[in-house]
């Protein structure tokens, strides 16, 4: 079942001489429960694609469907709400709220939505990610790997339709990278999550079910599930 789909997605930055086409008519389909890795060199357009998929940036043209919904038909406020319900983010730089402790960071998007926290589910996620002993710590008291695990827990906690990970291991050493990625994959499988991850590291990409290759804004390989 398609959970994520793009149609002729194009993003152009700048004007006239400074015009840069970061993404050019990109078509992509991701099925429920899939773990897809988007790879490409620096400047190939993979981050731009991910940002479009998450509704963080608006495309110049084209559409993005999440769970069948054209996300750019939504206004900013509604898009934000849609994002926190349907999309979980894992950033390279963790992006935890510095004033909230680990637990509060994890349940932050749920509480923003005014929903009750599914304590059982959250505890399970926290347990799997090995964060049980550090729930009351503040982000600046954690190591990079620990912070990224919190970010993953946060992405999972709201049970989104899709998790978008932007170079989640970019700030981590190789050992921690392996650990974090394994956790991401395991939890994804366990909870049936769809994960789209961008990386420029081929070895890491190999852990994914599918590799989507992007060059100069074009998806050159892996745009369709069975490609």
């Amino acid at each position, binding site marked *: 079942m398609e959970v994520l789909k793009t149609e002729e997605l194009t993003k152009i930055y700048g004007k006239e001489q400074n015009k840069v086409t970061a993404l050019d008519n990109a078509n992509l389909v991701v099925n429920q429960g899939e773990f897809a890795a988007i790879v490409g060199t620096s400047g190939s357009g993979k981050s731009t694609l991910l940002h479009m998929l998450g509704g*963080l940036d608006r495309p110049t043209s084209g559409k993005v469907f999440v769970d069948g919904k054209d996300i750019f038909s939504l206004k900013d406020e509604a898009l*934000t709400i849609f994002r926190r319900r349907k999309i979980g983010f894992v950033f390279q730089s963790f992006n935890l*709220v510095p*004033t909230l402790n680990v637990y*509060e960071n994890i349940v*932050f998007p749920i509480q*923003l939505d005014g929903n009750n926290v599914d304590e059982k589910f959250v505890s399970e996620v926290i347990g799997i990610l090995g964060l049980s002993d550090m729930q009351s710590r*503040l982000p*600046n008291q954690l190591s990079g790997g620990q912070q990224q695990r919190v970010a993953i827990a946060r992405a999972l906690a709201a049970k989104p339709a899709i998790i978008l990970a932007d170079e989640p291991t970019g700030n981590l050493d190789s050992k921690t990278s392996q650990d974090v990625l394994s956790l991401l994959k395991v939890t994804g499988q366990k909870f049936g999550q769809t994960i789209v991850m961008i990386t420029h590291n081929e070895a890491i990409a190999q852990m994914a079910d599918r590799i989507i290759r992007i060059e100069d804004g074009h998806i050159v390989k892996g745009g369709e599930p069975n490609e």
Partner: protein
Amino acid sequence: MNKVKNKKAIRRLAFRELKADRRMNIVVVLSIMLTCIMFTALTTIGGGMMNGMQQETMRQVGGNRMAGIKLVLPEDYEKVKHDAATKDLVYRIIIGNAVNTELKNVKAEFNCAGDDDAAKASFCYPSVGRLPESINETALSTVVLDELQLPHEIGTPVHISLDIDGVVTEHDLTLCGYWEGDKVAMAQICWISRAFADKYAPTPSESFYTREHRTYAGYWQVDFNYFNSWNITGKTEALLSRLYGDNTSEFPDTGINWAFSASDVEPGSIVGAIVILLVIFAAGYLIIYNIFHINISSNIRNYGLLKTIGTTAKQIRHMVRVRAAVYSAFGIPFGIVIGVLLSRLMMSSIVSILNIRSAESYSVSAELLMTMCLISAAFTFATVMISCRKPCKIAGSVSPIEALRYNETDINIKKDRKKTNKVNPFSIALGNMSRSRKKTVVVVLSLTLSLVLVNTLFTVLKGIDKDKYIRDSIVGDAMIRHTDNTNLIGDRINGVTTEAIADLQQIEGAETHPIYFTYGGVCPEGEQLEQLKKLYEKYGGDEVLAAHLEGAVSGSYTAAIYGIDADTTAYFEPIEGSIDTEKLKSGKYAIVHTYLWNSDGDSDVEIYHAGDTIKVECGDKMREYEVMAVSIIPYPLSTKVYSILETNVIVSAEEYLSLTDKPAATCAMINTSDESGRVKEQLKAYCDRQGSPLVYTDKQTYLDEFNDLLVMVKLVGGTLSGILALIGILNFINAVVTGILSRRRELAMMNAVGMTGGQLKKMLMWEGVHYAVLTAVCSAAVGALLSRTAVRGATGDMFFFSYHFTLLPILICVPVLLMLSAVIPSVSYKAICHDSIVERLREN
């Protein structure tokens, strides 16, 4: 270590960094500008006011030299002239006073000016004509000419009756010069020529101070300046010691110009001034420190990055300083220009509103303005540099990894929070406030400072009490008393005769209340006698006191007997007992008060108390009264002459008239409901009759005089309060805006994980509200404390001040802050939303 030429690279980096963050730059430059405006406005307005006040005082004193020696000889002048400490010497020769009946309302002192400078130094240089040269010439002020009812024309004949050391001579002179007289001057100086002086008041050869029979005419008054106005009294004492050695009996009398008395300030005032300066400096420091701190915090990742690529801590500190210097280079000149314009605008409005004649004395000279601007610039720059020291340190000491994780959180906050904490905009806002407690404290403190300053100023302004101010000058709507305050007591108390009172009582619409007076004696007995004996023992060592107390102990001392009517009692404030006008009328009761001028400084020694019986003799009559109240007679109603020991015995007018055969009043108090001015005109006309020694004064004259002062003080104080309040509010805006601008990335991140714009705005709004509430609470607490202690203490001695506790300015400012805390976050957030989340997330 080898020196490398890296300055250029560092500077380039600093400038590039600056260019990269335009919005923040504007905020920082604005905050420096604000501080500079505050310093400039305060120094120029303060300087202008001080200058103006000093000039006004000089006019009142009648001289602009710092000090002078009185009644000296030409050789003394030479001595002073050759002393290295003095400069700008001038002299005038004392001749005598004009005693023309037309001049009863002004004191006209005839002098001979040593030269033009001498006339200029006393603000009496003819603006038309010149100083007298021949023996029959005179130069007068327009005030004297008006009193003499003479035209302002050169060549006008002037007849003067001149009292030279008690001998009155008549002179027919010709007007050779005149100038705009100054009504506030204590005396009108009139000039005559040296030839006149030599003929009628030749300079004696013997020193005034060693002469047996002291006469004044012919002696010189020598005035001069020192090189600075610091400690003029001390300098003058030193000068006398140098000139006359140890022989203090030969020391001439000196005069210190009290326009310069600010230089002889008491330690308390210096401390007060220093405290105020420190508070102002602190306000500026907090504004700038706060902004710099935020600025550095938002750039901390950059500094970490620079460190990773090999920039040293010293170089980073240098970069921050370069940045501060560039900000100052923009902020300070603008601040000075705006500050000067603001103060100019204010001073000119004060001068025009008050119609101040000597407007030029309130304007600041170009050099002074320049100095003040330089001081303000230096002060602001010093504030900037001191304020950026701490941020410099933070920037320099940050490690690359710390920098990446830096988020302004005060380290060592380790709170084990319950994991069930509800997360909402309010709680996140609260978390943000406590995340950086130092920043919160700094912002709240700086806002509090401004508000407290405003509140303090307001309390002082509100406490100025005009009724209190005139209470020592006049009682009732008008008063009539004898012209010459220095005349003999006998004359004065007979000044307002019973005939005059009868005449005044004829004037329709005027209620005349005579204050009768005569001297008598108190015959102490029993307890009172015992008390006096004790006082005699206590002060027996003091020759003068002992002499007076001796008389009292042996059975009698001075009674100042006043006779008043029922209406006058309303102006008495009993210290003991109460005043019953009916009882007073019966003639069996009296209001009393006793003075004893002793060395302890406490002159009110109550011998008689309410309920006591006082035995009073007046001429050949002896009466006994029961003391109904102890009360000081209002100063304007008194004779203003005090014995070393005396008891005021105030009885009813009827009782007074039965006591003495020669009744007379020291003055008459007049009340009137007439608003047309007719009564005033009639009273004035009565006093101005040919040969009348009576002088009319009314409440309005004093109120007008006070109003000028009041309006000026209120305008200056009000504007300063306005500036301070505005700075406080701008600082608040600054703090909130900077707080938002510096967290663009953080806000974008929250937005990315699902916090909507509305929720973010709400969170920012709550932060503003927290600041506003904290500020309100702190300001109210500190303001109340300061008001109850310092303001109350400092104004306690001001006779025209009634302390009223108020927090009104704070109460007014709080809703403004609350409103701003609702509006600013929305506006600022909108501004940062121009960039997409991704763009903001990519920022360092």
